[in-house]
C-alpha cells in the first residue's frame, strides 16, 4: 500500500527498488509536479528545444517551453545561437509574444525595457530619471539585468538551465549521441509544426513513447492493414534514464533490404501510405526518448522532434517539429507527407495514444493503487526484442534518482509475499 505523506514529497512513496510498480498518485500530485520543475526541468538535464535550421538569419527567434518556463532560442548577430527565458528581468512580462519571427531588439511592453536577441539588456527608460529626479541609483548596471540565459548545444538544439549538467554527449551516452548525429548528418529542412493538448500527466506520455509492449496491441491499424514486417530486427537499448528503440530491415547476402508483401485483414485501397524509401541505412523505426521528456523519432520516412510541455499534473502539450532534408526531391516530400497520416493528432496510430492516456488519467483516484510493470522481468537491461517493459522501468529508475525519491527492496518483497 502506498500511504503518501503529503508534506514530504521525496520520501514515503514506498517505491519498489526494482521499479516494477508505479503509484498512480505520481500522475496527479501537485507537489511532485512542482518538484519535477526544480529537479528535472530546471535541474541537471538537457532538453531538446528545436533545430538550428529554424533560425537561419540574425534576429530569427523561435519560442517554446522547458517544463513550465517559457523560453526563446535565437540567432545572434554573429550567427551565434542563444537560448534565454522569455520573461522580462524587470516585472516578469513575456518579452516575446509571437511563436516566431525576426526581431533584433525585442522590448517588454510593460515598461519598455529593451533587449537584444541574445538576451542582453540594451536600454531602460528613465534610467537616470527625468530632469534630475527619480531614476535608478548610480550602481544600476544593465549587465546584471539581462534575460536569464541557458546553456545550449548547437545543431539539433539542446538546452539546460544547469551549470552542473555534464556535456550533452556525456548526458546522452554514445549510442543516442551517434543516432542523433546520424539523423542530422545532412542539412535539415522543417516541413511543418503540430500542436496538441492531451489531458494526461506528461510522464504517461513519456512512458507510452518508449513502451514497446503496447504497439501491436493498441495500434491494430498497422497489423490489420499488413503494414508490419515480422522479419524486422528489433533492438531495445535501455540507457537509464534514456531509451533507444530501433527496428531494422533484414537484408540478404548482398545487403539488399527485403520487404515482404503486405498481408493483413484489410487491404489499403490506396497504397500511397505504405510506400517508403530506404534512407537511414536499414533502420525503419528509431525512437530516441531522452530523459525527462524529449523525443526524436524516425518512423519509416517521417522524422520529428517532439517537445513535451507539462502544464499541470493533469495536462500536457505536445509541440511537434516535422522535418526532412534540404536535398529531398518532390518524390521524397510526397512520401513523407503521405506517411505522416499515421502520426500527429489525426494519425492512425498517434490518435490512439492520446485517447488511451486520457482514459488512464481520468481513472486515477488517490486510493494507493499502482501500475504493474513486469513484462520481461524486473531488470533494465537491453534486449534484442520488444517484448519487455525494461525501458519504462529505466525511466522510473532515472526519475527516482534525480528526484531524490527513496526506494526500498522491502517494498518489493512485502508485495510479493
Amino acid at each position, binding site marked *: 500500500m502506498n500511504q503518501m505523506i503529503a508534506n514530504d514529497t521525496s520520501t514515503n512513496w514506498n517505491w519498489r527498488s526494482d521499479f516494477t510498480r508505479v503509484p498512480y498518485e505520481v500522475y496527479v500530485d501537485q507537489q511532485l509536479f512542482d518538484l519535477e520543475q526544480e529537479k528535472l526541468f530546471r535541474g541537471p538535464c538537457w532538453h531538446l528545444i528545436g533545430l538550428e535550421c529554424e533560425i537561419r538569419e540574425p534576429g530569427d527567434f523561435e519560442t517554446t517551453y522547458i517544463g513550465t518556463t517559457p523560453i526563446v532560442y535565437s540567432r545572434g548577430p554573429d550567427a551565434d545561437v542563444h537560448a534565454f527565458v522569455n520573461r522580462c528581468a524587470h516585472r516578469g512580462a513575456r518579452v516575446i509574444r509571437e*511563436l516566431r519571427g525576426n526581431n533584433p531588439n525585442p522590448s517588454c511592453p510593460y515598461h519598455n525595457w529593451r533587449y537584444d536577441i541574445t538576451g542582453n539588456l540594451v536600454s531602460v527608460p528613465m534610467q537616470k530619471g527625468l530632469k534630475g529626479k527619480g531614476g535608478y541609483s548610480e550602481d544600476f548596471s544593465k549587465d546584471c539585468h539581462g534575460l536569464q540565459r541557458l546553456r545550449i548545444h548547437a545543431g539539433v538544439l539542446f538546452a539546460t538551465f544547469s551549470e552542473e549538467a555534464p556535456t550533452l554527449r556525456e548526458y546522452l551516452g554514445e549510442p543516442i549521441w551517434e543516432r542523433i548525429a546520424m539523423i542530422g548528418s545532412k542539412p535539415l529542412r*522543417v*516541413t*511543418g*509544426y*503540430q*500542436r*496538441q*493538448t*492531451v*489531458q494526461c500527466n506528461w510522464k504517461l506520455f513519456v512512458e507510452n513513447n518508449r513502451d514497446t509492449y503496447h504497439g501491436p496491441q*493498441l495500434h*491494430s*491499424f498497422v497489423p*490489420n*492493414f499488413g503494414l508490419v514486417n515480422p522479419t524486422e530486427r528489433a533492438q531495445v537499448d535501455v540507457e537509464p534514464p534514456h531509451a533507444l528503440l530501433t527496428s531494422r530491415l533484414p537484408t540478404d547476402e548482398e545487403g539488399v533490404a527485403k520487404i515482404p508483401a503486405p498481408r493483413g*485483414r*484489410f487491404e*489499403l*485501397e*490506396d497504397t*500511397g*501510405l505504405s510506400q517508403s524509401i530506404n534512407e537511414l541505412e536499414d533502420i525503419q523505426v528509431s525512437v530516441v526518448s531522452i530523459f525527462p521528456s524529449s523525443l526524436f523519432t524516425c518512423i519509416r520516412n517521417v522524422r520529428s522532434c517532439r517537445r513535451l510541455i507539462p502544464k499541470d499534473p493533469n495536462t500536457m*502539450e505536445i509541440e*511537434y517539429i*516535422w522535418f*526532412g532534408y534540404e536535398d529531398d526531391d518532390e518524390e521524397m*516530400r510526397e512520401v*513523407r*507527407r*503521405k506517411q*505522416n*497520416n499515421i502520426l*500527429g*493528432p*489525426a494519425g*492512425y496510430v*498517434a*490518435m*490512439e495514444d*492520446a*485517447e*488511451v492516456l*486520457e*482514459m488512464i488519467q481520468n481513472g486515477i483516484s488517490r486510493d494507493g493503487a499502482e501500475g504493474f510493470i513486469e513484462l520481461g522481468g524486473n531488470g533494465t537491461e537491453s534486449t534484442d526484442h520488444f517484448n519487455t517493459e525494461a525501458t519504462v522501468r529505466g525511466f522510473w529508475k532515472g526519475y527516482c534518482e534525480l528526484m531524490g525519491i527513496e526506494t526500498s527492496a522491502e517494498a518489493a518483497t512485502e508485495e510479493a509475499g
Partner: protein
Amino acid sequence: MNAAVEKFADLERVVSRLNLRYGMSIDEDRLEDWPELFVENGRYIIDPRENRDLGLDGGYWMYYTSRGMMRDRVTALRHVNVFNKHYYRHLSSETFIESVEGDVIASRSNYLVVETNWEGKSQLLSAGVYHDKISIKDGEARFLEKVVVPDSFHTRTAIISPL
C-alpha cells in the same frame, strides 16, 4: 434578377449544399458517404493555419490524395482504430465564390466543429476555413479538392473524423 446574377446565386446554393451534405455525412455517422462527395482522384487535406501561413508543405493533419485514401480512413475508423465514442457537429457558413473556370468553382466558407464526448459534454473542436475546388458535371457537384485550414492549429486530444 438578371440571368447572370441568378446563375451566380445558383452556384452559391450548389456549393453550400455540398458542404452541408459533407458535414451531415460525418455528423450523422454516415462516414461512408464522405468519400463519395469527391471525384476519384479528389484530395482531402487538413492544413493547420500555422503551417499554411509559413508556406510549409508538410505537417498536414490529414493528407489524402485519392478517394481510396479516404475510404481507407473510413475502414480504419469502422473496424480497426480505438477511440472514444464522440459526435461531431459541423456548422458551415454561406459560401464565397472566388472564381468560376469552365465547370470548376473555387470557393471559401467558414466552419465550426463542435465535439460532444461519450459523457455528453460539448466543446468547440475546431474553427477555420474550407478552401474548396468543386466540379459540376451532369448537374452533380463533387469536390476536386477540399483543404480544411483550422485557425485552431493547436488542437486537443485527437482529430478522429474529418473536420
